[in-house]
């Protein structure tokens, strides 16, 4: 009950921030429309809607890091967390309270991305639902990364690190904008060692219905999600005890 109250509050804080809506929904939709317009004039296989939409859906999820990090950092700076530490809320209530309400927000964001993609020509089928569901581990990874950053950095730093650096890094290393195999070398190896490209490939596999190819990517994403969640919990509790 207490945790649900805190969950509800976190969801309201995120959904009522117009900047979150602008970045979380507006930016991915604009990119989807823009790249589809380019594709219509100069066809590139990478930007075909069935290939592009999963990438943009994952790119949209990367903003979850910014949202959760900003919320935690702001709560620390405004001393709201300090106030809540004097209440019966327990450690798990905070961690789950920050993370859980963002999952439906992430799912809704992916759904909107795919809805726009359908309007742009993506065939309607049940595989889109599985893609949205399989996007949740990646969403949790980005959310946990936000909790981790919000526990360490202040609001201004979070804006730079999670808003600019991470979203760009995540996009470059995910194979959305260019084929990683064309770059190859160290860049390709680094990209393959990180979860971003696997999150995109997982989505592409789900949309194309080739689930056999999806499992290796899912395992990598789940591994990173577990590691990020553990790291975020540890860092959050550390700053909580430091109070």
């Amino acid at each position, binding site marked *: 009950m*207490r945790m649900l*109250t805190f969950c509800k509050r976190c969801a309201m804080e995120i959904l*009522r921030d117009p900047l979150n809506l602008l970045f979380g929904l507006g930016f991915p939709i604009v990119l989807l429309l823009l790249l589809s317009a380019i594709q219509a004039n100069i066809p590139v296989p990478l930007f075909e809607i069935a290939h592009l939409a999963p990438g943009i859906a994952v790119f949209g999820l990367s903003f979850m890091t910014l949202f959760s990090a900003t919320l935690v950092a702001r709560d620390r*700076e*405004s*001393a709201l967390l300090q*106030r809540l530490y*004097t209440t*019966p809320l327990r450690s798990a209530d905070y961690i789950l309270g920050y993370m859980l309400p963002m999952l439906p927000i992430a799912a809704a964001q992916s759904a909107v991305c795919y809805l726009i993609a359908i309007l742009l020509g993506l065939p309607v089928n049940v595989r889109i639902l599985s893609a949205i569901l399989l996007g949740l581990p990646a969403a949790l990874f980005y959310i946990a990364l936000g909790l981790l950053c919000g526990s360490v950095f202040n609001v201004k730093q979070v804006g730079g690190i999670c808003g600019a650096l991470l979203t760009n890094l995540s996009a470059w290393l995910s194979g959305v904008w260019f084929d990683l195999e064309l770059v190859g070398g160290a860049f390709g190896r680094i990209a393959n060692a990180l979860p971003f490209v696997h999150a995109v490939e997982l989505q592409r596999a789900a949309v194309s219905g080739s689930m056999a190819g999806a499992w290796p990517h899912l395992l990598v994403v789940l591994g990173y999600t577990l590691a990020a969640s553990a790291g975020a919990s540890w860092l959050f509790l550390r700053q909580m005890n430091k109070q």
Partner: protein
Amino acid sequence: MNAIQTTNLTKRYKNLVAVDNVNLSIRQGELFSLLGVNGAGKTTTIKMLSCLSKPTGGDAFVGGHSILREPLLVKGQIGVSPQETAVAPHLTVQENLELMCGIHGFTKEKRLAKIQELSAQLNLGDVLSRKAGKLSGGWQRRLSIAMALITEPDILFLDEPTLGLDVIARSELWDVIRALKGRITIILTTHYMEEAEALSDRVGIMKSGRLLTVGTPEELMKSTGAQRFEDAFIAIIKEEKS
């Protein structure tokens, strides 16, 4: 029984003693002010008493419970209004109050009754539907105090409640604090002399983590031979320096 009793309460950081062997007794129903310049140790003392920070030495009994051994029982008796406004900015005033009620597990009936009572007590009725982040500093502080009062605490900690407020907002907040006086024990930190003098039953003056003296504003003026409370404060601080 005293509302608060500390014994050699100490907080050390690596190379700094933020609170140094503080022995303090605060009576039930008293408004006690901790006064001192920046870095005196006021906020650190409050953080320890409200179980936000563990002491590195000594102990304190808040409402008869040890902050070291019974922090949950201590938390059940206190309300805290931190130095910063500590409100959820995108939630309305009513939603902020509901948040605190929900976290404390109030029933729907109790929640509604409590919000109505606190709105009347702190004159929040006109701003209940406004987002907290859009309120002026004075109203945010008022909301912050209301949030701290939601559990009907026996002991209320107000950390620099009027910091950064204009004269009118400060005066209005003083009225709110005066209205609470006597009903609950209030521990207030401030570095405004006139605030300590106007509101407090007794004042403790801190410097460099140590509690230099405790007394009523009149007693402190008398002991230093000062005509004004501010002069008494300066004399006590300077005397300690020499």
